[in-house]
């Protein structure tokens, strides 16, 4: 049991590239922290620095009250689950889990108890004598987790552990990881690029971009009040619609100081097809370009004729002028149809013109 504290952590490579540009994160004892961001944002590097697999250029990493900057990975009292599982192919499942304990000189009887306990928790009991090559992807994933559990570490580190699994298995393993973490109550840091995984798993969510932390906090709080346009478009699927407040259609509806903000954001589910404009809200005229029906809900992709002017360019953002509306699956609009959609005032998000600052209405 331990808390993990990162203080102004930086990582620069010899070629001058700065992968991590000063990160501060506090993970309390027993918390599940998820690092999320697009590929190349430095989230895996940061995790590997906590693991001790990458050196720290400056700053401080503290695990359970001990600065571990210069401590070997094996001595940090952590366990890591890798994306490709990294199981020893020539060892049986039992030996895969026991290897780390044997290297630490633990007694065979104690090793046996621990491995069998982990196998019971992970339902691997009948597979202990098999080799990793004889297991399915999900089972290998369990073995990798078992290898972490038997160590009884202070901190679990997960490096995109579910990305090699198929969609269904990913969902069930996601639930299992969460249950397991609650049950063992071990501080965990989990890296993913999947915002859905991030939202569902995290006690504390760290959204990263370009080696920096964009926002830290409770996942729902981040969803409701994204601090930047990057977070707004990255968290939530489909992404938030972002548009300039200075456009002719929007300007008079917003009015006053809100126009000065620069960027207006509306989530697809906050828009509804209606002819009325709610007081203080915003209404948009759209021509429907495409419709995605997924059953319970329907995503309508519309374009706004008046303005093709885009806002900040972040990964995952919609092309300029395109608006996504999320409506119940029972409604059936047609391609080419002209519709009016509107959102109420307290569902509007305002950001500064560069997208770096949230402005409260």
């Amino acid at each position: 049991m331990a808390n993990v504290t990162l203080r102004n952590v930086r990582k620069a490579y010899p070629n001058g590239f700065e992968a991590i540009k000063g990160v501060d994160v506090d993970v309390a004892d027993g918390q599940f922290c998820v690092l999320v961001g697009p590929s190349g944002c430095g989230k895996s590097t940061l995790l590997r620095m906590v693991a001790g697999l990458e050196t720290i250029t400056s700053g401080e990493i503290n695990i359970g009250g001990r600065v571990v900057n210069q401590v070997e990975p094996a001595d940090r009292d952590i366990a890591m689950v890798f994306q490709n599982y990294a199981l020893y192919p020539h060892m049986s499942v039992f030996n895969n889990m026991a290897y780390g304990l044997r290297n630490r000189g633990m007694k065979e009887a104690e090793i046996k108890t621990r491995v069998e306990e982990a196998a019971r928790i992970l339902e691997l009991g009948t597979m202990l004598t098999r080799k990793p090559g004889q297991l399915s992807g999900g089972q290998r994933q369990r073995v990798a987790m078992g290898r972490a559990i038997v160590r009884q570490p202070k901190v679990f580190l997960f490096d995109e552990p579910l990305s090699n699994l198929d969609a269904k298995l990913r969902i069930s393993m996601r639930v299992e990881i969460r249950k397991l973490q609650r049950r063992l109550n071990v501080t965990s840091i989990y890296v993913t690029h999947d915002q859905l995984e991030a939202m569902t798993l995290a006690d504390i969510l760290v959204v990263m971009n370009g080696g920096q932390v964009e926002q830290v906090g409770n996942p729902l709080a981040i969803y409701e009040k994204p601090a930047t346009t990057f977070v707004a478009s990255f968290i939530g699927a489909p992404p938030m619609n972002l548009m300039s407040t200075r456009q002719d259609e929007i300007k008079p509806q917003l009015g006053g100081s809100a126009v000065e903000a620069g960027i207006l954001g509306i989530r697809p589910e906050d828009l509804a097809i209606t002819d009325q404009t709610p007081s203080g809200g915003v209404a948009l005229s759209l021509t429907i370009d495409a419709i995605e029906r997924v059953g319970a809900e329907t995503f309508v992709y519309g374009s706004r004729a008046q303005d093709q002017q885009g806002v900040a360019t972040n990964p995952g953002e919609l092309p300029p002028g395109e608006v996504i509306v999320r409506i119940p699956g029972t409604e059936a609009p047609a391609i080419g149809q002209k519709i009016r959609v509107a959102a109420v005032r307290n569902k509007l998000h305002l950001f500064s013109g560069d997208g770096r600052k949230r402005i409260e209405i």
Partner: protein
Amino acid sequence: MVEHRRFGNLLPHLVLIAGVIVVAFPVYLAIIASTHDNSVIANGQMPLYPGGHALETYWNTIMSGTGKTTREPVGSMLLSSLIMAVGIALGKIAISIISAYAIVFFNFPFRMATFWTIFITLMLPVEVRIFPTYKITSDLHMLDSYSGLILPLIASATATLLFRQFFMTVPKELVEASKMDGAGPIRFFFDTLLPLSVTNIAALFVILFIYGWNQYLWPLLITTRDDMQTIVIGIKKIIDVKDALTEWSVAMATAVLAMLPPVAVVVLLQRLFVKGLIETEK
């Protein structure tokens, strides 16, 4: 594609059978010759059917060698060859696996320079560097010894290269998982890398054993004592006799005996050999 071949697979089979005959016939002839009495071959007759002297010829060849000269029995030549070939194969594997481990998994200054230095020795086989190598071996008083036969031949760029290529396919996460599990470099080498390399080692052993077994020039220079003679040299000496008839049956029996150990190695390690060359799953 539908093929209408009148003779089906007849032609390919004929070609292949002809190939097999071309390769196998001399071997067959050697075996036949070794079963006849010396005088039969000396008279210029070369029968195509086995004679009745097989056991006698092989017994004499292994136990006492040729009758008239003071040559060594072929049994001791076999032993010398075996020691040399196994020594060279194991030595090459041991040295190259360690150097490949250093080159792939450790980051030290001039790492690539080291690799290329090893690599260019491919251009310097024993035949090219025979005088300096002989000088060093003799200065170290290793003439007429097994270490003199083996040690100068055990550096291998080919094997280093093969192990390097294999090691580079080992996922780096495996190294990291080992680190997390508290295994240092030596533990990782013995617990993980070596077991994973077994098929590669077997494949290399087959190739290198045959390389060592077929050495001719180097043993010829290094050994002058008859009891250290290898079988490949022995054959030559048995055929090349002065003022007497070559004992062809003994010579042929020696040739057949010289073929057996490489064949045995190939047969025994065949499955691992093929796996080592084609296997990709780690």
